[in-house]
């Protein structure tokens, strides 16, 4: 196997940088999200991509509810931007009576941050985009 890898240099050149990029991006995001989680009023976050998902919520009983909500918001938004030619999704903010959710799609990562209504969404967006 090792010999074969060496022989097909092209394959290793293509795959390795992508794998490296994904790892860096995801770990970078995770670090940012950990920082955001410390903000006052932030309830937790969900980070999801094609190969993994991380959920960190203060109230574990709501994990499924929030995961479904996050997924529904992103799916609905994709349909809306498609129908009305709004372009690629930059951010989704869902404001409920008791809480708020900010969702963003960064590369292949789908992020949703849940927070109390008093939290300024723009601050979190900036913290994620840095």
């Amino acid at each position, binding site marked *: 196997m090792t010999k074969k890898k060496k022989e097909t240099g092209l394959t290793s050149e293509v795959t390795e940088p992508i794998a490296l990029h994904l790892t860096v991006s995801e770990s970078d995001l995770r670090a940012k999200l950990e920082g955001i989680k410390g903000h006052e009023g932030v309830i937790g976050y969900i980070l999801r991509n094609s190969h993994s998902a991380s959920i960190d919520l203060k109230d574990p009983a709501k994990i499924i509810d929030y995961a479904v909500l996050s997924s529904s918001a992103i799916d609905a938004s994709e349909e809306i931007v498609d129908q009305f030619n709004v*372009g690629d999704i930059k951010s989704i903010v869902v404001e409920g009576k008791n809480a708020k959710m900010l969702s963003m799609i960064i590369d292949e990562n789908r992020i949703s941050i849940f927070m109390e209504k008093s939290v300024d969404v723009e601050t979190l967006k900036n913290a994620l985009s840095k």
Partner: protein
Amino acid sequence: MEGDLRSFALKSALEEVRNLCPDISSVFMFTEDGEITASDQGTPEASIVRIIDALDGLLEKAETMGGIELVTIRGNRGEANLSHISHEYLTTVTTEKADQNVNLMTRSIITTVLRLLEKMNLAQVQTTPAETITKPVESAGPAEDLAEQAKQPVEQSLEKPETTESERVETTVNHETAQSEPLANQFIVENAQGMLVAADTVRVDRDTLQRWEDLQNRKIEEVEVETFGGQSTRCKIKPIKETKLEGKGIIQMPQKIQRLLNLNKGELVKVKPITEQEDDGP
């Protein structure tokens, strides 16, 4: 107010908003039941239907957050906004050049129009005795009490001095009707949630419905819902699906019926099953 007139007023308001703000590419409204209320001319109905379908899951799941107040979807070529205003959703799509205040302004205008329409509707109901306005049921209480009352012989005819044979026959028929008078119960109005809610159906708890059916000895499919202002309407009846809502004295009612009766969540209504005689007509 006629639904068409309401729709016309809203449609005109949406058109005006769009004319004033060229950066609004699409604006439309729909009810909590998923019924399109009004839209600007440029937005195809098929697109709106697809959006409503797409939002169905989100609106349902947002109960986790206490229900939706506002959704903002920002894209690199524009923005879509969904606001919950008085049992309806206003959707505005703007280009990337649009001022951030456009959405606020649209929401304010539509909120004002909706309030105005509600007031006009109320004024119309108060000034014209519409066909739907009927005399309120005099006795409304627990089903058991009313059942006892229904079993009591009706003495009204005894007070009449002399009656002809035909009058006697009529009185007997009336007695039978009175004895089988359906029971009126009071319920607290609760919104019927979800996009797939039938606009003509209310839901009460299974026990009440069963009790009515036992007393009537027939399946109850329709009820008369009556407000304490005296307005009433007929609608289909089904049992509440959620077991946690059983026995709480609530009636799940679609927005359409609430609007028709000028009702809001939390208000009290009287509900009585439609009898066979009423079903068959006079």
